[in-house]
């Protein structure tokens, strides 16, 4: 192998590439850590005291009036939600 040929093994592009990959890895880890610093907080929900949950749903476009009536079996009082 001549001296001229030895110059062929002195390229530093490979080293630069590997260093760049290291940089990519560290940036990735940094971003992941940065995103996890402030974990998304859950909004506190109001405690539900109701034992029964009655839901009524209707299409937005209907012209009818929709009411919800409830009646206890023992006293007979009616409650209306409209």
């Amino acid at each position, binding site marked *: 192998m001549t001296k001229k040929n030895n110059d062929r093994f002195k390229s530093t592009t490979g080293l630069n*590439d590997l260093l760049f990959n290291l940089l990519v890895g560290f940036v990735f880890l940094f971003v992941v850590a940065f995103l996890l610093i402030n974990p998304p907080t859950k909004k506190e929900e109001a405690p539900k005291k109701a034992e029964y949950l009655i839901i009524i749903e209707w299409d937005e476009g209907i012209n009818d009036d929709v009411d919800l009536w409830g009646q206890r079996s023992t006293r007979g009082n009616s409650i209306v939600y409209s």
Partner: protein
Amino acid sequence: MIFLRWWLFFCLTILAATVSYYFGFFYELYDKDATKLSFVIISIYFMASLYVGKLTYDQRSNKRYETGMNASWFTSEVLLSLGMIGTVAGFILMLGDSFGSIDTANPETLKEALSSMALGMSTALYTTLVWLILSQALKIQLVNLESGAEND
């Protein structure tokens, strides 16, 4: 003799490629390398490898031996540079579009951003892996050719 060594090495390369294909390496490469530069590197390697084989076969009679050698060494450097380009492209992919839609209160957007970043990172690493292997394989063939030329 050096042509037989080249032939042995070439057959081993084909065998390695077949085994990689059997284990699904190329499919994974296609999925994980967003730029597809790895396949460009692989194509250039095979063409250069065949050219080196031709040089090895008729090195004594080939008048353009020196030019061919220089071109082959240059090709091995080109593989390396393509790998570097893949790394930079992966870096850009990783940082480019990932952060635009991040909402820190929404875990789904974080998940999307991280998967997008992971694609860029895998692009950078896979192109590096491919050029590392193939550039060295090409250089081994060239050193074999040069050693044969010096012995003559």
